[in-house]
C-alpha cells in the first residue's frame, strides 16, 4: 500500500503543491499542507514541492516476471482485411521490442489467412503467430478471447498491443480480466522504462484535460489498447519472419453470441475516424437545411461531414456524425469547424487534428483558442465564397 506524508517541519505552507495537484486534493490548514482523502499517489506534488516536504512511499512487491518475453501486436481484420491500426501498432511495437532487446511478434486469427500472412511477411517482424479456423472468420468475443488467452498462457509475451477500436476494446478487457493482468485503455504514447524494464503507457483522461502515465508493475503481460491514427505506420522492409501456425481448440458451443447480420453504414457517410478532411457544422448554421453548405464543402474537398453535439441533439443530423466527447474522436489532416463555438466536449474530440480552421461570427468563441487559422466572419457569407473559389480551382484543374 502506498502512503503519502507531509513533513510538517519542512512545510512552509507556500501552496505550490495545492496548485500542482491535478485532483485538487491538497489544502493549506494552519500554514501546513494537508492531503485530503481520495489521493491516488500520482506524485505530482512531490515534484512540485520546493522544500522536499512531501514524501511518497510505495511498497514494492517482488515478483518474478522474467518468464515473459517479447512484444505482441494483435492484427485486427475486418472482412479479411488487416486494419490500418495494426501497422501503427507494429511500428510502436518494433521500437519497444528493440528497446527491450526482444522479439516483435504479430498475432493473427482468422480464416483463409494466406494473403494476409504474405502481407505481414513484408514487414520487419520476427514472428507471426497464425491461428486459422472457419469459426474465427469474423471477430467474435468468445472465440477470440479464448484463443488469445491460450496463446498468451503458452508463449508468455511481456507486452501486448491491441488497437483501441470497437473490436480491440471489446477483446482486450475480456482477456486481461481472464488472466488478471493490467490493461491501459486508449494509449497515445508508449515507452520502455529501461531501469524497471516496464512499459510506460501514456493516455489522456478527464476528456483530455489531463494525461496519465500508467504502468503494470506486478503482472504480465502488460496490455494496452492504442488509439488509432496516433502512431506512424511501419514501413515494409526485408524480413525473415517465422510463421508459427497453431491449431485452435474450438467448438461451436464456446461462442454464446451469434452474429445474425451485418449492416453497412449508409454509403454517403464516410467513416469520420478514417477521413483525412472533416467539415463540421454547429448551431451557427442557423437551421438544419444549411447543412447543405457543409456537405457541399466536404464534398468538393473530398472530406466527411461532422457535427457538434448541439445540432445532433437538436435532430438536425444523425448522431454518427457527432464529433466530441460523447461522439467520435477524430484526427484528420484538416478539420474545418463552421459555426461551432467549441465547448470542451467538442474540443476533446477534434483538437488533435493537424490543421484546424474555425469560422465563427463570435471573436470570443473558445474554438479560436485551438484553431490554426481563425476566421471571424458570418459563415453564410464565408462558406459560399470559399466554395465558389474551390469550384473554380477544380474546374481549372480539369
Amino acid at each position, binding site marked *: *500500500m502506498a502512503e503519502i506524508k507531509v513533513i510538517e517541519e519542512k512545510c512552509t505552507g507556500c501552496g505550490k503543491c495545492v496548485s500542482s*495537484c*491535478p*485532483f*485538487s486534493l491538497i489544502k493549506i490548514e494552519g500554514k501546513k499542507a494537508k492531503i485530503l*482523502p*481520495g489521493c*491516488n*499517489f*500520482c*506524485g505530482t506534488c512531490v515534484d512540485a514541492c520546493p522544500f522536499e516536504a512531501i514524501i511518497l512511499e510505495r511498497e514494492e512487491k517482488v515478483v518474478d516476471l522474467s518468464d515473459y518475453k517479447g512484444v505482441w501486436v494483435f492484427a485486427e481484420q475486418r472482412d479479411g482485411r488487416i486494419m490500418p491500426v495494426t501497422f501503427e501498432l507494429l511500428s510502436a511495437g518494433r521500437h519497444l521490442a528493440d528497446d527491450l532487446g526482444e522479439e516483435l511478434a504479430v498475432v493473427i486469427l482468422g480464416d483463409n489467412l494466406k494473403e494476409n500472412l504474405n502481407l505481414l511477411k513484408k514487414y520487419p517482424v520476427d514472428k507471426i503467430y497464425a491461428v486459422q479456423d472457419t469459426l474465427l472468420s469474423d471477430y467474435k*468475443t468468445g472465440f477470440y478471447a479464448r484463443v488469445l488467452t491460450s496463446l498468451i498462457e503458452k508463449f508468455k509475451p511481456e507486452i501486448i498491443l491491441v488497437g483501441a*477500436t*470497437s*473490436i480491440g*476494446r*471489446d477483446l482486450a*478487457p*475480456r482477456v*486481461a*480480466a481472464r488472466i*488478471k493482468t493490467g*490493461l*491501459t*485503455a486508449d494509449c497515445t504514447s508508449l515507452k520502455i522504462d529501461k531501469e524497471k524494464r516496464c512499459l510506460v503507457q501514456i493516455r489522456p483522461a*478527464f*476528456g483530455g*484535460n*489531463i*494525461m*496519465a*502515465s*500508467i504502468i*503494470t508493475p506486478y503482472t504480465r503481460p502488460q496490455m494496452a489498447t492504442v488509439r488509432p491514427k496516433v502512431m506512424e505506420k511501419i514501413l515494409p522492409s526485408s524480413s525473415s519472419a517465422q510463421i508459427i501456425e497453431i491449431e485452435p481448440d474450438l467448438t461451436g458451443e464456446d461462442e*454464446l*453470441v*451469434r*452474429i445474425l*447480420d451485418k*449492416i453497412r*453504414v449508409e454509403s454517403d457517410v464516410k467513416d469520420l475516424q*478514417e477521413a483525412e*478532411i472533416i467539415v463540421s457544422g454547429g448551431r451557427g448554421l442557423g437551421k438544419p437545411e444549411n447543412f447543405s453548405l457543409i456537405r457541399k464543402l466536404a464534398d468538393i474537398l*473530398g472530406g466527411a461531414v461532422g457535427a457538434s453535439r448541439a445540432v445532433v441533439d437538436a435532430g438536425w443530423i444523425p*448522431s454518427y456524425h457527432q464529433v466530441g*466527447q*460523447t461522439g467520435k474522436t477524430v484526427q484528420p*489532416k*484538416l478539420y474545418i469547424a463552421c459555426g461551432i463555438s467549441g*465547448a*470542451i*466536449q467538442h474540443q476533446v474530440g477534434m483538437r488533435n487534428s493537424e490543421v*484546424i480552421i474555425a469560422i465563427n461570427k463570435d471573436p470570443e468563441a473558445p474554438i479560436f483558442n485551438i484553431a490554426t*487559422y*481563425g*476566421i471571424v466572419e458570418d459563415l453564410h*457569407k*464565408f462558406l459560399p465564397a470559399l466554395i465558389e*473559389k474551390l469550384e473554380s480551382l*477544380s474546374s481549372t484543374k480539369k
Partner: protein
Amino acid sequence: MLRIVVCIKQVPDTEELARVRINPATNTIVREGVKSIINPFDENAIEEALRIKEKKDALVTCISMGPPQAKEALRKALAMGVDRAFLISDPSFAGSDTWATSFVLSQAIRKIGEFDLIITGKQAIDGDTAQVGPELAELLGIPQVTYVRKLEIEDGKMKAERVLEDYFEVVQVKLPALVTVTKEINQPRYPSLKGLLNARKMDIPVLTNKDLNLPEDKIGLDGSPTRVVRVFTPEPPPKGEIIEGNLEEKVQRIIEELKKRNLLRWLK
C-alpha cells in the same frame, strides 16, 4: 420476471468544469464545487432498463461503486424509476483500477442475487476506458455485447445491434448477458415530480467490505494490476492565427494555406 442490473458511475460534469473551473494560471483541474452527474452513457443504460420494464415484468436494480456522495447519482436513478439501488462503498475500495472495480462489482452483483441482464454505458466520460463492462462480464462468466444501439428481449434471448466503426452487427445471445450501450439507443427521461418525491423517501442500502468480505489483494490499490505513476497536463496547442482582411482576402489566404499544406489534393 426479468432481473436487470444497471451499473452506473458518478462523474464530474466536464462541460461545467471547462466553462468555470479550469484555472488558466496553473492549467489544473479544479474539482471543488464542480457538479457531479450520472455518466451520460449510464443514463442511457437506466433508460433502456426502464423501457424494458414498461413492456415486460422486470425488476430493475441500479448499483454504483464510489464514495458516499455517489448516493446522489443513485437517488436520481430511483427518481427516473428504477426499483431499488445499492451503493457499493468502502474506503478499502478506493484506488481500484478497472480490474479491481470489476471484481468488486461482480462480487456485489452476486451478493445482491440472481440476474438475467446487466446494462451499463459504453464508457465513463472521466476515465474513458470502456473496460469495466467487458471485465465485469468476464468475471461473472457471462457473454457481452458492447456498443449496443438497439436491443430487444424475447423468450430469454436478447437481439442487439452493435455499432462498429463502419458497420452494424445484429447479434443474438441467450441470457444472462451483459450489454454496454451507446447514446443512440434512446433519449433518457427526466425524473417526474412524483419520481423525485418517491426517491427522496427510498432507502439506498450501502454494501461495504463488511458485507462483501473481499480479500485485500483483490480490491483497491493493492488489487489493481495497473498503477498511475504520474499525472500531468498536456501541452496546450500553439496559439493559432486570426486571419484579417476583407472576405475575399480571407478566402484567398485560406486557399493558399491549403495549397501550401497539400490539402487540396482530393479536390473534386
